């Protein structure tokens, strides 16, 4: 039904464009004054007036159809059946009715349920048809209204421009609103978690054992939600990754921009950027199957014990993954320093090295810092490599050769498998997610500030 409606609306938009275009040509041919806008703009104007209101109507309708029908459904149930049910039981009843309505009948449903399912289907059909008729009517009204306004003096060109800028604003709002939605859901679930576990315990506790008995008599630990070891593990791995990625990426960028011949550069730069295109899961098994055993063997040969899932293996491989981020952004930053800066420095008798360290790198610093901080927030948020190569047990250690766990690994293990959404174990994932979000947000804000500060000083 909906797909037919959208098809019809698209056809109407096309028709609107064609009609507007033709009408404008006809008006232009008979009018004494020159047309203000080209016929194409009139066509776009009609198309916009057909498409935008009808699509907005469809979106709003779809948003409200479900809740309205549910509300009608509850109202229509016999009083004696509904009274005394709490919210959970009522939800259960409604979803039973819906699944019967969809044709998935298990067991022997009540006559009341069968009847309600029937009603539910009927109402939905009515709603769908009402939407169809209404949307097409709105579209046709749009054609009629827009057609009427076409005249030699009508400024369709400016109006279309206005509509386009409105559309662009709407698109950017969608991204922002989605972010707000994510934050709101994180906050909501985190607040539920902090009802059960205090903020102080979560942020300062040194013990992380999220296993909680789900069933009676299950043997697990009692559950402890001190997230310090998890944060420490995240920072340790991210730090190792940055220590690997920053110098390598930066030196590679300096070499490529200042020393390499253009031929070499044109081969090496794309090759380096291929690194960014490798799926992280591939890095993950590279870490766990190749790097970790190698590190372990080296450790054994030198006589010390290294865990098979050490922080070092995960961090080092993550660092390799981040090299292209840093090198590519630093490369752009260094290359965009004007040639006149290089000339000025060389003309004063500076060597290449002096020019790079004293003029190019300081000038390019905002861009380089941007790249480094972007890489850092990727390192903190990276999941797949650490899930495969780092540990799950949260131990508070700064020894890179021991297993540690990270925030992302914990979120993943907490949310997969048997989950119950009012259990602190599950809710803990949202609190961790919130902290992760806030810390990358802070990193990004710092990055922006640094960039702005140097901009002010240097330009």
């Amino acid at each position, binding site marked *: 039904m909906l797909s037919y409606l959208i098809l019809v609306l698209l056809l109407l938009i096309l028709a609107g464009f064609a009609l507007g275009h033709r009408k404008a040509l006809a008006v232009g041919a008979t009018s004494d004054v020159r047309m203000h806008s080209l016929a194409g703009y009139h066509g776009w104007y009609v198309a916009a007036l057909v498409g935008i209101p009808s699509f907005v109507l469809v979106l709003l309708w779809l948003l409200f159809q479900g809740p309205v029908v549910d509300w009608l459904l509850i109202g229509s149930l016999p009083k004696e059946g509904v009274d005394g049910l709490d919210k959970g039981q009522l939800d259960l009843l409604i979803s039973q009715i819906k699944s019967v309505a969809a044709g998935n009948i298990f067991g022997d449903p009540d006559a009341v349920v069968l009847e309600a399912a029937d009603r539910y289907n009927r109402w939905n059909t009515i709603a769908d048809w009402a939407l169809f008729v209404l949307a097409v009517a709105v579209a046709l009204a749009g054609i009629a209204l827009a057609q009427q306004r076409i005249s030699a003096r009508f400024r369709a060109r400016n109006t279309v421009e206005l509509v386009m800028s409105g559309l662009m604003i709407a698109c950017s709002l969608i991204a922002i609103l989605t972010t707000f939605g994510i934050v709101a859901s994180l906050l909501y679930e985190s607040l539920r978690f902090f009802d059960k576990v205090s903020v102080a315990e979560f942020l300062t506790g040194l013990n992380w054992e999220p296993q909680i008995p789900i069933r009676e008599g299950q043997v697990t630990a009692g559950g402890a939600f001190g997230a310090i070891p998890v944060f420490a593990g995240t920072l340790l791995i991210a730090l190792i990754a940055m220590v690997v990625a920053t110098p390598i990426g930066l030196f590679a960028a300096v070499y490529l921009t200042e020393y390499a011949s253009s031929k070499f550069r044109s081969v090496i730069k794309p090759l380096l950027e291929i690194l960014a295109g490798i799926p992280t899961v591939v890095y993950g098994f590279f870490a766990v199957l190749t790097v970790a055993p190698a590190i372990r063997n080296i450790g054994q040969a030198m006589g010390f014990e290294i865990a098979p899932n050490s922080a070092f293996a995960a961090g080092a491989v993550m660092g390799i993954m981040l090299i292209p981020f840093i090198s590519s952004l630093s490369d752009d930053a260094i290359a965009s320093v004007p040639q006149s800066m290089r000339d*000025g420095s060389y*003309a*004063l*008798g500076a060597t290449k090295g002096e020019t790079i360290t004293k003029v190019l790198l300081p000038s390019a610093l905002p861009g380089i810092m941007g790249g480094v901080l972007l890489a850092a927030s990727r390192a903190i948020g990276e999941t797949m490599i650490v899930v495969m190569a780092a540990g799950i047990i949260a131990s508070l250690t700064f020894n890179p050769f021991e297993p540690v766990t990270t925030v992302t690994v914990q979120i993943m293990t907490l949310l997969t498998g048997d989950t119950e959404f009012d259990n602190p174990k599950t809710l803990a994932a949202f609190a961790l997610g919130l902290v992760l979000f806030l810390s990358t947000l802070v990193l990004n804000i710092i990055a922006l500030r640094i960039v702005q500060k140097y901009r002010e000083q240097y330009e």
Partner: protein
Amino acid sequence: MNDQSKAFTMEMDKSGSVASDTVMNPHKVTSRKVSVFYGLKQALFDIDLDIPDRAVMALIGPSGCGKSTFLRCLNRMNDTIPDCRVTGEIKVDGRDVHDPDLDVVELRGRVGMVFQKPNPFPKSIFENIAYGPRIHGLARSKSDLEEIVISSLEKAGLLSEVKDRIHEPGTGLSGGQQQRLCIARAIAVNPELILMDEPCSALDPIATAKVEELIDELKKNYCIVIVTHSMQQAARVSQRTAFFHLGILVEEGSTADIFTNPTDKRTQDYITGRFG
């Protein structure tokens, strides 16, 4: 010795410098059969040009005639351009600049350069000037460095304008001040020869007048080679003028002669504004 060199020798005497040096070795730069190629394209053809010390030599000519290219040969800035090849002999102070034993970094310390567009580094005024002395190790202490910075600003006539904001960014100055900052930066490494590649083309007339005044002042102690598109500027600031056309040095002589009595028809056409 022609009139012009007599004139500047006399000027030397007035300024109290050692005149005998100038008389003995009046040419700071000598070039013989200098040709420059960009890839396969030849930009300069067998240039023979001698440049006197403690005077201003102007290089004029239409765009693309090779005057900037010649200028950039003198401190080997053409090295930084890929595919650029220089042949022939250029001697600064009697020393061949293409001598493999010669350190190009040291050469550029002796031959300063000022560019068409002011290009201060994105650093403070102080740091801009301190840059050269630092990398060449000219200052033994912090106070030495401060002294060099202050005296360079003084010589560039910029000190009174910026002395309160010497630690503020050089890029915050006006265009004319930026250009004088670049001249101060070049002076700070104590060069003997200063190359100026259209130093006033991005400046307004008032800033231009200040830079020209400065050039006039600087010629007492330095050898200056200036590329310019403004014939009036060449006439105002230079003692000798060389006219380039299509990669060839057409004519060279005292500025007064070139502008009043050119021997070549092309020179005459150019300075009377018939082309270029």
